[in-house]
């Protein structure tokens, strides 16, 4: 069973064995507004937990995308680079950002589950 967890920076992460898929939450896209640009990490590069791993820009502003866990970038989603509006349409499924081969599963422990994240998102946007 794959488990989805959430970061305070509004990323979601789905773990499947050693492979993690990461994207930004629906709540994040609602705060950002219309997304018009996405930049993803290089395939093969290494990213560190809480480090910058991409950028999204809305008509209003640019925001960094952070990785909630460390690992090697094994895949990126070209679809969202070609058509960034897909991120607004389907942020938590087809418009994922990148996939990592992770080293340390314990890095997942500090992340929130769905219920905790929804509470956090509600409190921080109020």
């Amino acid at each position, binding site marked *: 069973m794959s488990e989805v967890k959430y970061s305070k920076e509004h990323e979601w992460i789905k773990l499947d064995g050693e492979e993690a898929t990461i994207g930004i939450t629906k709540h994040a896209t609602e705060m950002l*507004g219309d997304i018009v640009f996405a930049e993803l990490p290089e395939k093969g590069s290494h990213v560190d937990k809480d480090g910058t791993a991409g950028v999204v820009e809305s*008509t209003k502003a640019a925001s960094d995308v952070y990785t909630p866990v460390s690992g090697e970038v094994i895949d990126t989603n070209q679809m969202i680079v070609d058509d960034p509006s897909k991120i607004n349409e389907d942020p938590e499924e087809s418009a994922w950002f990148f996939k990592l081969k992770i080293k340390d599963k314990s890095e997942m422990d500090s992340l929130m589950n769905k219920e905790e994240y929804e509470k956090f998102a509600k409190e921080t946007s109020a």
Partner: protein
Amino acid sequence: MSIKKTSLNNLHIKYGAKLVEFAGYQMPIQYKDGIIQEHKYTRSHSGIFDVSHMGQLFISGGDDLTNELEKIFPADLKKLKTNQSKYSFLMNNKGGIQDDLIITKTSDGFLIILNAACKYNDYKVIKSKLDNQYKLNLDESLSLIALQGPEAKNVLNKVIPGCDSLKFMNGNNYVYKNEKVYITRSGYTGEDGFEISIKNSDAETFVESLIENGSKLIGLGARDTLRMEAGLCLYGNDLDNDTSPIEANLKWAIPKSRIETEFVGSEVLKNQFQSGVKKLRVGIKPDSKVIARVNTKIYNDKNQEIGKVTSGTFGPSVEHSIAMGYVDNSYSTVNTKIFLEVRGKKIPANICNLPFYKKNYVKGEINV
């Protein structure tokens, strides 16, 4: 100071606006549809903009008002016919722009539309330069509503019949619910449109009737992308106290008849007309989708810094990243290759013509 609300504040909330503070006012950045949809609706149909935060300064009194105002503004006010409007500037002694504004000649004086963030200072500056016999009224009992887009004339004509005969940059008095409204054909989007000056107490019902006739409320977010596509300047970004109208590439707004005459900043402008300027505002088109926002540094192909971006966004109608900025004059020619430093990377871009989006104004008398 507490945050101010316009007379449309309840309506903004009713239509799901995200409210932000702008120039001391609580203003809608966007509504439910979002910036891109709002932008496109304005270009394809019509959009309603609450611009009541802007200053509406009425100046009247005295026989010599036109002469006195020509000592302040570089516009040819003597030639202005009643109800005709001109784009002009309030400058400082160094030729820098304190505000960009629209002056309209009214039956008993002039109406000047001022930027929200500048209006109180403008009032002080203009008052200090005019004799006491002249009456200045920064009228906050009036709201200002812009209606923009190809359907604007049809929508407005249903609510206030007859206004579709107005020519671009001309205004007139009309009646709405037995009250006088003043309408000009002008705007800030690159589309045909109108600005309606209306009593605060009538503003809400007026806007509701525009909505009933097919228009939608549009927030400041889309107002910004629309004006950028149209190549229009935003005061505070593209224009400021250290930038002259010549540097801003707005030479067309200084009539030839005024170049040899005296007004605030005229010496500097005369000089710049003769010997040119060091920096110039240009349009910038990045090669990729990367957005170069305000303060992005601009480099030449030898990695020397040659200027900076003053406005940048994604243009929803041109479907491209677009920007404006100031570059060293020797790099201002169209198609010059430049580089924009975004997040540490040098993004190739080209100097391009403005506007990015072709204008659609209803042409009136052209004498610029």
